[in-house]
């Protein structure tokens, strides 16, 4: 029985100091896809201005387009140039469908469970996606930490908001609440973790140390929530959004670094937003 010789790349692999990192040219398929998404978003926004069913459809399209754009952007950043966009286009399409369906019926929100399953199946099939943390499992300790962090931040949000600003904590319509949670599971938390932690943080962490990478990823994530039209305009809501999104972002980055998977951070985000959905202004 032979003992495997450990490979130490610094000693055992050729090194060419003259070979520089090549500037990655934008993939035309990515440009086309991004253009299509922007076009769809524009169409959705245009339809939102209309009345009746078209308005609902337009809202669904616009919402779906934004999350699809996050999915596609994350895929382009995270995956190598040789990989095709097929899987992410399919996941984005399922997002569109779920988004439109949920505007017509609460049961349509069940379709939001499709995108995470599709992304997860890609993670199982492609070993190369593990370098960005897309894998089916994580250590139990990390999963528990993620759930605990989400519950702590969510609970703190509920207590602070109710005690400080007089917000109510209640679930008046269970169906609507579950639809909102489904939206977080399939779109909000999923695309946030995929884009900001799996793609941006993973890529930055390979070039910089943890804190600068986490700061970049978290600041972009906070910006995304600040730009979300669904965020209330009240000053305390905006300050609170910055505060909690920053904490959530850094926590998710730390969980990603510690566990090697985006699953704990995803669970933290889902749990937090599940608490957020209970707040009534």
């Amino acid at each position, binding site marked *: 029985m032979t003992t495997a010789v450990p490979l130490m790349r610094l000693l055992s692999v050729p090194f060419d100091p003259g070979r520089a990192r090549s500037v990655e040219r934008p993939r035309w398929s990515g440009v086309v896809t991004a253009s299509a998404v922007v076009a769809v978003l524009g169409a959705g926004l245009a339809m939102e201005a209309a009345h009746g069913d078209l308005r609902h459809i337009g809202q669904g399209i616009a919402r779906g387009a934004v999350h699809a754009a996050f999915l596609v952007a994350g895929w382009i950043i995270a995956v190598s140039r040789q990989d095709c966009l097929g899987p992410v286009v399919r996941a984005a399409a399922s997002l569109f469908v779920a988004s439109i369906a949920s505007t017509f019926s609460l049961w349509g929100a069940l379709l939001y469970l499709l995108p995470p399953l599709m992304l997860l199946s890609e993670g199982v099939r492609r070993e190369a996606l593990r*370098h960005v943390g897309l894998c089916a499992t994580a250590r139990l300790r990390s999963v528990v930490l993620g759930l605990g962090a989400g519950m702590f931040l969510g609970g703190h949000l509920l207590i602070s908001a109710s005690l*400080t600003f007089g917000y109510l904590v209640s679930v008046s319509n269970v169906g609507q609440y579950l639809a909102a949670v489904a939206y977080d599971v399939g779109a909000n938390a999923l695309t946030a973790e995929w884009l900001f932690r799996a793609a941006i943080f993973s890529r930055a962490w390979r070039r910089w140390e943890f804190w600068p990478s986490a700061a970049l990823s978290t600041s972009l994530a906070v910006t995304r929530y600040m730009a979300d039209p669904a965020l209330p305009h009240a000053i305390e809501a905006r300050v609170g959004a910055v505060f909690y999104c920053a904490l959530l972002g850094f926590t998710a980055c730390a969980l990603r670094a510690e566990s090697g998977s985006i699953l704990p951070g995803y669970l933290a985000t889902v749990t937090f937003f599940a608490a957020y959905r209970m707040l009534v202004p």
Partner: protein
Amino acid sequence: MILGPIVLLAIITVAMAVEAADAPSVIRHLYLGPTVWAALSLGARGGGLVGFIACLVQAPFTLPAMERLGLGPESIDGLVSMTMPPALGVAVGGLVDQVRTRAARLQTVLDLQRDLLRDATLQERLDRAADRVRDLLGAQRLALVVGCTAARVVASSPGGVVFLDRSAVAWTLREGLPLLIHDLEQDPRFPAGPAAGPSPVRGLILPLDSGSGPVGALAVERVGGFPLSTRAVAKEMALQLALVVENARLALLQQRFAEELEAKVLAATDRLRQLDQAKTEFVSVVAHELRTPLTALQGFTELLVSRAVPPERTAKALSHLHREAERLGRIVAELLDVSRIESGRPLELKPEAVDLCEMIDRNIELFAAQHQGHRFRCVPHPDARTLEADRDAVDRILKNLISNAVKYSPGGGRVIVRTMPADDHPGMIEMSVEDDGVGIPADQRSRIFDKYVRVRDRQTTAVRGLGLGLALVRALTEAHGGHVEVESLPGKGSTFRVFLPGEQAVLADFPDSSA
């Protein structure tokens, strides 16, 4: 380990909630307890985390009170006590981290020094040092490479790492520059490898320099981050390892010197023993050689003194006496010459034109008369008739060579003396004495011109002599600016070639006066 402070924190929070006072409760000051506990146990990370949680759980109590009471002294006090835990947790934890890191560094340095003194092989000590430094840096793989031109891995953790001449470490050894790679798996300067893992693998190579020049490099591979503080520790360890390597190198040198010295002492002792043995043998041989003619002298003189001996027997006895006296004189002369050579005094030579053919003929006649079992022949060359040399010296050279040729042809045989111009040595004349005797074994050929050395052969054990003849031949030849060579085959015989200056060598120094 963080569970204890968290539980205490929760208890304090519950107590605050139960108290439900209008103003910020004094219980809030207790939050410093679990914060300091976490900072002392877990350092800045633990203290900062628990402190931040303490800040967060105070917020639902402090902020509403601030809203009710306004921004007064109590509110400010509440704000301050809210922000104190994270600040204190980070500050105290940071100090604890610094102290622990310094202690770990010093302990590692102490352990490295202790390992050097351990009774173990050099390889075991270096492997142990590599393990310690790897544990200190929290690295996955570490290697110590020694040498700048012909580098090799002297220790690695885990072991068995292979070194490539075109690797990043080889580049550092050539350039003498440190190298930090943020992502070993995806850096374009390395060829593509297996699929990258979820965490980046950082690489750091530091040259080892103990102050007397670069001695090698330290290579570290670490999964996850490689913060500045860890890099600083790695630099310090590189210095310590350079000292370890330098100490090991000096220890090896010292060991080698000691071994060489021991070998030289043994060789010198052996030589002294051989000389002592040779001296004992020499004394024995000299005593024997001297005793033989002296016994003959004594015997014959006693005979002549004690009895009336007939004239024909008297003449014979006197002839024996003369011969033995001559022999005694030769032995003493040889001993005196050897003594002169050994004391470094130059031989007194009187160069003159010597008729070589006449001298050879005379000696051949002498030896032929004494050794009828041998056939002697002279083959002179018309262009090699005259030498410019000391007559006595040439005579002794000839006598020694012919005597040896006779002695080492115990069964009889031929002895041929030739002269010829030395083609390879202009101005020199070659005189050779050839025999078909026992020859000289190859392993003894290099020593036969040494003093007191005689060829050991079962056919010539009865041969008498001091072992000085050939030493004298060489000394006398070299005193004339010439040299002596030998060719021999065991069982076939030997040919001794002596190169001495001819008359032309002297004339060549002077321009032709007729020109």
